[in-house]
């Protein structure tokens, strides 16, 4: 199958649109999860209990 036909079929066939929706949400979820972990880990390695005294 020529590449142009493959690309065309991606846009005109039913199905790929739904895959992209799911893909976008999963990517976003992964990024947000990693960002949240990164925020919470901030300063963890240099904990100083007297910092605010």
């Amino acid at each position, binding site marked *: 199958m020529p590449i142009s036909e493959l690309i065309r079929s991606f846009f*005109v066939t039913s*199905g790929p649109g739904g895959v*992209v929706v799911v893909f*976008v949400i999963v990517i*976003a979820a992964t990024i947000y999860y990693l960002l949240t972990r990164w925020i919470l880990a901030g300063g963890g390695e240099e904990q100083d209990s007297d910092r*605010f005294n």
Partner: protein
Amino acid sequence: MVRQRTFHPENVHEESILAPIYKISSKDLLLWSGLLIILGVGAYAYFQQLISGLGVTGMNRPIYWGVYITNFVFFIGLAHSGTFISAILRLAGAEWRKPLTRAAEAITLFSLPFAVASIVADMGRPELVLNMVIYGRFQSPLIWDITAVSLYMFSSVVFFYLSLLPDIALIRDRITGIPKWQHRMYEILSLGWQGRSQQYHRLEKVLDWMAIFMTMLVVTVHTVVSWVFGMTIQPGWHTALIGPFFLLGAIYSGTAAVVIVLAILRRVYQMEEALPIDLFNSLRKLLIVFSLGWIYMMIAEFLTIFYGNIPEEMEVFWQKFTGDFSVIFWGMTILVFIIPLFILIVKGKNNIRWMVIAGVLINIGMWLERYVVIVPTETRPRLLYELAQGVYRPTWVEWAITLALFAGMILLYAIFTRFFPIIPLWETAESLEEDEQKVATRRQRIFGQRIQSRIKKEHDHANQ
């Protein structure tokens, strides 16, 4: 394991901001019960629709979109308030926005599920939603819609939750005398937040990044929603202006909704000091600008159609100006533009009551605007405008479901304000402190050099 001591920035208004969390009054229960009854009636109406099909609504060929889709566009519009106030004003460096952010973001958060519910109600059979995922194809603007709205809803939840984290931790550590389950809920939701300076640094950074992304999303979402109409060749819809027109209207009604919500919170929870009149005056200026922008779009849109004089377009045009929809059309123009602009300019300054009246009128008008964009075109579709003309009268089922959607949104909002601080404590802490020198020293210790130099720069700039 020894638990680390958690730091919380100090806020002089902490007591008044946290006061609503301590008790659920009988008035709350009364309000919640009333809203639940409306929700119950809506659920019954939806059940009727589910059993008998969409025949119980006023929709019929050629009118497939009525009140439900009007609600959908309206809720999406309301949802833009949070992103506008929080993300766009954050990027613009508007410091006055800080006390408003959470109240505005909560509108976003609680509007979007009901926007999605409106679509499900319009589909008749809810399981058909899955077809969008299973058989989704790029040629359909609906798939762009699903992608954009889902991502927007998801990102809004994360944006909202992250900015809430330090305050949940504060409630976890400071509030006593609440039920055990409630305390446990705060423990789980705070994700072990300890208020370390690095955590605040990173949180600020992530919120800045997300603000950029959310700003792009907010434009995308409402543009894509408008393209569901604009990508057809129906008269009144097929115009390049429809995207920006929808977007501007959305931000306008969303900002008006923020005014209403803030005024209610200010009065009910006695937050006069935490929500000063200056905030309302700033929102008033924004609303004046948006109202002028909105009328500009209206004139540009209808003048182009009028001079184009295309028969199919003119059929819908005259329906709005002098025909079946003229009362709604002119009523909408008066409610969205004429009266609010007069109120905002002449009466609104330093007067919250007048601003709330303007906000309510704007929102009623914007709902009518969505209706008058959608329905007249369907009653006179391009191919049938001479042969067949549709008639649409919404039935009690549609009105009951509509009321239930609004009741659901208000209910979620009301419950939220009883469990979480509606004014961000940590974000407003810096600007609400009394002793500047004390605060400056503490800021440097807590937020580090980067934030401190930014604050100093802003201070110098203000003094010039």
